[in-house]
């Protein structure tokens, strides 16, 4: 049974939420996350999902309420973007440290300032080190698929961490594409009933949640949390295989696109991977040995698998849709670490900040090694 509909990424994510039917969704609206929650709220109002939506007064409260709901034993989801995530950031760290398996959709949007509503990945990168899983979708289908997979990853006893499904603002959240939905029953079976983590808030078995940790225990608890995030890499692959059997679409930590025999490769996150694939197809038709490494999982970062996938490449270019002023952009830094000691020429490019488009000719220049460090920035000369 193949139910293909014309849906925006935001609507597709809302359908995944309807089918998962979480117990609680505390949420505050923000562009470009809005279509996710407005579509989902309509599903709840129409009785097609049975979720308690908590209309909170800010994202700080949304994540706080989400922690309370998750630790009280409810399957919990939320969604935000940009400034919303920035306001939530303090509590995202707390959610990870309290090991609350909250699933959150993030409509990626540039952080202020200047204020902007369009896509880049600066919001994701703001919470890079918070200890949450971050998965990036290439298109509306993947956003739906990852949102169905996410509860299984978040709630696995080896993980118990928040999982973010990141979809590029407007490019994915607001663009309509054909999306294949699984039958409702299949999703319900796939995610299964919610198994409450060991120690939840329970007046008959009182516990202290989120205890103070002094120098004698803080380090140990941080290490325990990091180990859970590392374990999410195996869990992701297991869930990806199960999901692949169910749907015919497998989304592991990375996707190698025409990397066999490639000597030049681009590494990218999110919707840009789609643009790069088109250019790879063109260049392969012209007998150029080029390929794409698309990262689905940015956290945990699959460093060894990245190095293995790029083993045949003499030159690798990393596309960062977020800058790190005064330092090395986040994806570039990860690649430099993953490929350290190898014989690869690594180039880093920042592109697309605040929603600036990346065009196929730009990607051709990257493959040719002639692109500027800041692709699309007016006045910057190319490398040749």
């Amino acid at each position, binding site marked *: 049974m193949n139910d293909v509909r014309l849906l925006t990424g935001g609507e597709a994510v809302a359908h995944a939420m309807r089918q998962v039917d979480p117990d609680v969704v505390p949420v505050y609206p923000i562009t470009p996350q809005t279509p996710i929650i407005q579509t989902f709220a309509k599903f709840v109002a129409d009785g097609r999902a049975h979720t308690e939506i908590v209309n909170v007064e800010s994202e700080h409260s949304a994540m706080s309420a989400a922690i309370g709901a998750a630790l009280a034993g409810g399957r919990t989801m939320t969604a935000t973007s940009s400034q919303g995530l920035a306001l939530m950031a303090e509590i995202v760290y707390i959610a990870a440290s309290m090991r609350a398996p909250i699933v959150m959709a993030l409509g990626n949007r540039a952080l202020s300032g200047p204020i902007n509503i369009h896509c880049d990945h600066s919001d994701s990168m703001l919470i890079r080190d918070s200890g949450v899983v971050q998965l990036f979708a290439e298109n509306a289908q993947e956003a739906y698929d990852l949102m169905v997979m996410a509860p299984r990853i978040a709630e696995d006893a080896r993980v118990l961490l928040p999982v973010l499904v990141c979809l590029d603002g407007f490019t994915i959240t607001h663009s309509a594409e054909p999306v294949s939905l699984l039958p409702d029953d299949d999703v319900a079976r796939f995610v299964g009933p919610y198994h409450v983590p060991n120690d939840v808030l329970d007046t008959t078995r009182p516990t202290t949640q989120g*205890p103070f*940790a002094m120098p004698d225990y803080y380090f140990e608890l941080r290490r325990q*949390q990091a180990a859970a995030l590392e374990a999410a890499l195996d869990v992701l692959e297991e869930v990806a295989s199960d999901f692949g059997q169910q749907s015919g679409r497998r989304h592991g930590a990375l996707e190698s696109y025409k990397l066999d025999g490639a000597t030049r490769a681009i590494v990218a996150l999110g919707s840009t991977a789609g643009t790069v694939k088109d250019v790879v197809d063109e260049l392969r038709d012209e007998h150029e040995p080029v390929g794409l490494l698309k990262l689905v999982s940015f956290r945990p970062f699959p460093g060894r698998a990245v190095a293995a996938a790029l083993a045949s490449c003499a030159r690798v270019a990393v596309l960062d849709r977020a800058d790190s002023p005064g330092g090395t952009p986040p994806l570039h830094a990860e690649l430099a670490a993953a490929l350290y000691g190898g014989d690869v020429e690594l180039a880093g490019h920042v592109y697309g900040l605040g929603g600036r488009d990346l065009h196929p000719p730009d990607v051709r220049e990257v493959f040719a090694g002639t692109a500027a460090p800041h692709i699309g920035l007016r006045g910057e000369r190319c490398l040749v």
Partner: protein
Amino acid sequence: MDELSTWEKLPVAGVVRPADAPRSLTGGWRTGEKPTADLSLCVNCLLCWLYCPDSAVTLAGEAFTGFDLDYCKGCGICADVCPVDAIAMVSE
């Protein structure tokens, strides 16, 4: 937990169960004053019980009986909120 644990042995998220916690008698934090109650004035409104930040007001059923000085930190909130001045802070 008598010895410090490695991270693998800690409960997930460091959740503390009652049996794991040392029973520190935090009443030792008082710095010179403790509450006393004149039961002949008390109207059993239980505001002191409601406000006490350390759950150190003791009851028999729903009747006020006094203070658990093992946990009272001597903050004086009970004396402050008592509407009939039945509670006074006195020198230890």
